[in-house]
Each structure stands twice: as structure tokens, then as C-alpha cells.
């Protein structure tokens, strides 16, 4: 059995196996890695909620204060 598996590997050796370049390896990341970025980016892309209005005003006001 082992031998059979190994010989299949050898047959595939017709194509030299090379480590893909860094960019390609990024593409090959597991789905959850993409999901982690999607989760993060989905929040980055949200407009700031209204609850931030006071904060924004405060930052503006303090600048002109002194």
C-alpha cells in the first residue's frame, strides 16, 4: 500500500513540485483566514454610527478651544 502511494508520487514528479511564490500562497490560505479579514473589513467599511457624533464634536471643539 505504502509503496503504491509512493509510486504515485513519483509519477507526479513529471511536474517538478515547487514552492509557490508568496503571493500565490496567500491566495491558498484557508477559508477562515479570508473570513477573519472579511469580518474585520466589514466593520471598517461601516459608516460611523450616530453614537460617535458627540465624540466627533468634542474633538472638533477642543481644537478651537485654545
Amino acid at each position: 500500500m505504502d509503496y503504491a502511494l509512493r509510486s504515485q508520487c513519483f509519477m507526479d514528479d513529471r511536474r517538478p513540485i515547487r514552492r509557490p511564490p508568496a503571493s500565490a500562497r496567500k491566495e491558498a490560505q484557508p477559508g477562515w483566514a479570508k473570513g477573519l479579514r472579511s469580518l474585520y473589513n466589514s466593520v471598517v467599511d461601516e459608516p460611523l454610527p450616530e453614537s460617535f457624533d458627540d465624540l466627533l464634536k468634542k474633538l472638533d471643539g477642543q481644537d478651537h478651544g485654545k
Partner: protein
Amino acid sequence: MESDEPSSSTVRDDFRQSLLATLPHLRAFARGLCGRPDMADDLVQETAIKAWAAQDRFTPGTNMRAWTFAILRNHFLSELRRSRRQVDYDPDLAERLLVTGPDQEGPLHLSDMQAALQRLSPERREAVLLIGAGGFSYEEAALICDCAIGTMKSRVARARAELARMLDPSAHDDNNGASAADPPRRLAAGGASSGRQTG
């Protein structure tokens, strides 16, 4: 308007612009850390106020995102310690996350991702968020979390192995090394890794 120190007001203005531009990223980081949009936004606002008050300690030209992320994570951890509140995972909120996420492709739902993140220890969660989502280098992430680069690398590796086990069953075989060092007992224990049973 006196123009004695024009550079000072320019610096303030630059600081404010830079801080404002960072808010969406702070929200994303905070959401990932605590898993709850309301709590996350509170953290961000408190962070922005702290950052504003401490702006003299910011060196212009350095990474505003890294600087404010460090403030946020320290604030988050101290809140966590002080209140000892369980950061519960709320499936309803996760569902809303799922709806807001425009680019959900494939079988993995963002709610699953969020749930899995919340099952990591806070150290591993912040590590994988900074490296895997925030785009920071290991060096920057280590500075943000005030740890050695090697520590950061190992936290990220362990977080990735845990996430792979939770979210990608086919990855089991690929992560033999990591899973041996990290028994699944931690996962089976459920939600908050540092949580204690009360009662």
C-alpha cells in the same frame, strides 16, 4: 487667531485627522476583541478620548493605528480585569454582523468566525486579529501587545491552529504539530477561556 505657533495647531489638526481616520479600524479591532458591537464602540470612544488627551506622547509621523490600537487593547484588558465580566457571545448580534458583511462568500459565515474568535484566549485573539486582519507586522503587533516578537509569533500560530480546528475540519491533518501542543480540552471548555464557574 494668533499665529505665534502655527506649527502647534497644524500638529493638532494633523493628529485629529489621523485619529478620525483610524476610528473605523479601531471599531473593527474592538469588535473582534470583545465580539459585541455596543461594547466595542464604547471601547473605541474611550480610546479616542484617551488618545486625544495623550496626544503629546504621540510622535508625529509614526503609526497612529498602532499607537491607538495599543491604547485600546490595554483599555480592553483592564476593563476585562476590573469588571471580570464574561464576554458572552451573542448569536443575535452575530446574525446582524452576518447581514452587514457584504462579501460573505463560501460556506464560512462571519458569525461562525466571530464565535470562534471569542473562544480564543484574549492573547491569541488579539494576536491573530492584529496579524491576520489588521495587517500589522509581527514586530508592530509585539509592540502593541508589549511582548516579545517570538511570543507574538507563537500566539498567532496557536490561534491559527485553533481557528483551523474550529472552522476548517479538513485542516485537522495539517495541524498535527500545533494540536499536540494544545489539547482540545481548551475548546471543549467553551466560551471564555479565563471564565470561572460561579456557583
